[in-house]
């Protein structure tokens, strides 16, 4: 990791966290511990395995081969039986942040309210919180066909600079760099499948942890398959549903040829107030369907409106769930 000049760092910081005082607000927040986790390295999170922390868990009879230093001699004195004291292990936790970089994310929303940008910044905020809590975290960008950019697992508070630097680089390169079809050589599948980028499972987290997915969920299929494979890898999944205001409440009049940005298919619609109303209902139905799908699997579901500024939408996220809290 190369040294960064302070001015470069400042620019990077501005790109990732353009909102004033946002970092200060993030510092006042912490990731909720949640259920016991099984990490790899020692950390601050209570592990689901027994280990060497100070927190007493249970007694068990001594069996040959146990570390004799663990025998509770007081108890032995009273009972004349050797018992081993067991303590909970404390382990660090792994957070895997996945940001949807498909065309439906990168091309929708202007400037600051670009869906992809908003998702990336939200992921950066979550990543910041994770690193602040001495946990591990990685950020991956995936488009329609593959995982296109990846920030490997970072650990420790110092790693946040590396994260900010990398994210700044991605933002600076723009969404075009991550889109699968920018060069036009790759033809997009006619049916969008959420599980395609993760096919084979090599890109999925290897050890238990928390997976945050920042996506609009606009996939024809594959979401359940993705969730299944994540949960099979002992991941707690948090889904942040990103939608833009234009998608929630389109202000359209007249006759439009609606082109699916991912499949390039076109449909002609003559707008009328009735049709717009119907569309709004259909969007709500879609969100409800997603929410039910996730909640059925015990997956947290958050909605984020990209038309709002990040602090506003992030605070709403804070308020609507238990994964992040004020210290």
């Amino acid at each position: 990791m190369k040294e960064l000049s302070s001015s470069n760092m400042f620019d990077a910081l501005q790109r990732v966290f353009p909102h004033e005082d946002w970092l200060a607000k993030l510092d006042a927040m912490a990731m909720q511990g949640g259920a016991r986790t099984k990490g790899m390295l020692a950390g601050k999170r209570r592990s689901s395995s027994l280990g060497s922390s100070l927190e007493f868990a249970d007694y068990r009879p001594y069996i040959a081969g146990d570390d004799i230093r663990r025998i509770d001699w007081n108890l032995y004195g009273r009972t004349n039986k050797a018992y081993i004291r067991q303590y909970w292990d404390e382990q660090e936790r792994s957070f895997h942040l996945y940001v949807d970089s498909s065309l439906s994310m990168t091309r929708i929303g202007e400037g600051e309210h670009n869906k992809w940008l908003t998702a990336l910044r939200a992921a950066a905020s979550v990543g910041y919180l994770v690193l602040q809590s001495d946990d591990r975290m990685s950020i991956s960008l995936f488009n329609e066909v593959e995982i296109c950019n990846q920030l490997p697992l970072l650990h420790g508070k110092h790693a946040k600079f590396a994260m900010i630097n990398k994210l700044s680089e991605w933002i600076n390169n723009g969404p075009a760099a991550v889109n699968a079809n920018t060069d036009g050589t790759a033809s997009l599948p006619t049916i969008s499948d959420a599980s395609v980028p993760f096919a084979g499972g090599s890109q999925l987290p290897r050890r238990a942890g928390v997976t945050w997915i920042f996506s609009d969920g606009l996939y024809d299929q594959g979401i359940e398959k993705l969730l299944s494979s994540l949960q099979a890898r002992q991941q707690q999944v948090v889904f942040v549903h990103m939608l833009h205001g234009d998608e929630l409440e389109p202000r359209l009049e007249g006759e439009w040829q609606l082109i699916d940005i991912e499949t390039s298919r076109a449909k002609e619609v003559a707008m009328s107030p009735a049709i717009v109303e119907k569309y709004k209902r259909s969007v709500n139905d879609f969100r409800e369907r997603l929410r039910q799908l996730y909640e059925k699997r015990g997956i947290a579901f958050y909605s984020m409106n990209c038309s709002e500024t990040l602090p506003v939408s992030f605070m709403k996220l804070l308020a609507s769930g238990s994964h992040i809290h004020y210290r």
Partner: protein
Amino acid sequence: MHWLSLTSAWFGLATLLILAMYILKKRYEPKHISSHLLWRQVLQEQEANRPWQRLKQQLLLWLQLIIAILIVIALMEPAVDKQLAEDAHAVILLDRSASMATSVDDQGNSYLDNAKQEIIDWLEKEWGGGAVTLIVNGEYPQILANHSNQKQELERIITSIEPYYGASDDETALSLARALATSSEQSTIHYYIDERYMVGADAIHAEAANAEVWHLHAAPATADDERIRSFTLSQEERAVHGFVTVLHAAQLDRELELTVTAYNEHGKALSENAYKQSADASGITTFAMYDLPQEHFYAAHVIPSEHDPNPYNNKQYGLIAEDQVYQALLITEGNLFLEKALQLMNVGVTKLTKASDVPSAELLSTIHFIIADGSYELLAEQNDWKNVLDRFPLWILDHPSTNQQAELVNAAPVVNEHEVTQYFTMDDIFISSVRKLAVTELAPYDVLVQYGGVPAMIAGLKQQQPFLRYMFALQDSDLPLRAVFPVLVMNSVDYLVSGSTKQLGYMLVNATPTLSMSADTSSSYWQRLDEGRRDSKRVEATSSNGSVVAPAVPGVYTFIEQNEQGQSIQERTAVVTADVTEFAAPSIADTINSIQITDGNDSQQNSTGLSTLTAWLAACLLLMLLMEWEVYRRGI
């Protein structure tokens, strides 16, 4: 090809509007959206019934279809049964003939008065203020008001319409009314006529482009109509005999009452004789009267029964037929045939030769006309003779010399209709030579007979006196040997002496009788004698072309000639009678009834207005265009 309604071309502007809309019409604008996923539900529903949805979305299409249909309907020119527009042109033909003027209804009002009142009522109540053209019949049909819409003026004109007793040209009036009506688009013709309107069924059936309303007045039932057929008077010595023939219903069980009133020359009734006689079963009753006083003129009047529809013809005026011996001055070298013929005619002949001097005034005062047999040119060269010849009716018989003879061609002789040529034919009559006259000599006269391609006999007025000329010598022809010769001579004499008596006899209204006028006459007029109307105003007697015209209203008139000093120099009496041919005309009621039955629908069709519907269609179209614009504007 015809453009019936060029104004419809304005609808063509609508195409520009439609075109403009299509030019301005938005296409489907491409818009990238994140995914069709969100739209799927909406679009699926739209696609589920796609053909219908497509049409439903194409409101513009619907509107344009409606517009197209409206245009087609407009082209089909729909019409609804609708009363004629109030401002339509009304042509009114009023029959003012004698039959209208003299037929009366139960209240005693004449049909003409009733018809006039009907027209005025129509103006007051039904008239919508449109143009009114008023036509009356007569010798020539007259347009009294043309496209007038001033009620006061129209009513004044209608009130002042006088009956016309002469022979009227009804058919021309009818076609004039139709011609005036067809020249404008919406017209109704109102016929205020009676059943004795002299038009053929063909004329009535002729294509009538406009609504025609027949206000028909029933003809008086002939059976109930008692009328005087003839009234003749004759004088023998001092006694005056009168014969009146009365026509009435057959088997009439009634005593006919006849009064004969005698008037003096001032129109004053002097005596009145009443006669009664039972009606003859045959329907014709003749009264014979032998005790009439000798007076100027007479009026016979059959007291009409209560139901008599036409009391007018129960009265007739009569004059004593004069049985006079005429005196003729015959200037001849000898013409036996002529002399014998004149003798047969009871004409006293004073014979002179062309070498004779002018006869004495005493002699001249007794003669009625002069016959110049082959000596006219010679006499006319002498001033004395010329004066004499100019004062009297003149009958010239030419003796053409060799160089005066016309070249005769082989052509059939032509006999033109004239009083002189009544009962006369040129069949088998040979004329060896005919005198050729200059055109200027021929021009003022009627040619009666053409023989061998040249005029052989002419007649007319010369110096206001009857004038007759045979351009051949009787000796050069076998005419005197023919049976028609006495007839010709009699006609000739009658023609020459016509109007020379104290009485002018009977004439039709508005007729132009042949009158011999006094040489000093500078002006003349008619004055009515009957019914004590001596004080009534004088009626101008001369028409625009200088000939004498009989008065327009039947009655007894005195024809008064005045000299330059305004003194009356001659007064003669004439009975002016109405034209009675109309009364014998067949009734047209059946023809018109059949028209109204068969054409009933047509006339209703004719009285509908198309323009109103077209206006509605135009309004609909404009509304459609407005809607279309709105639809377009809202982008539905």
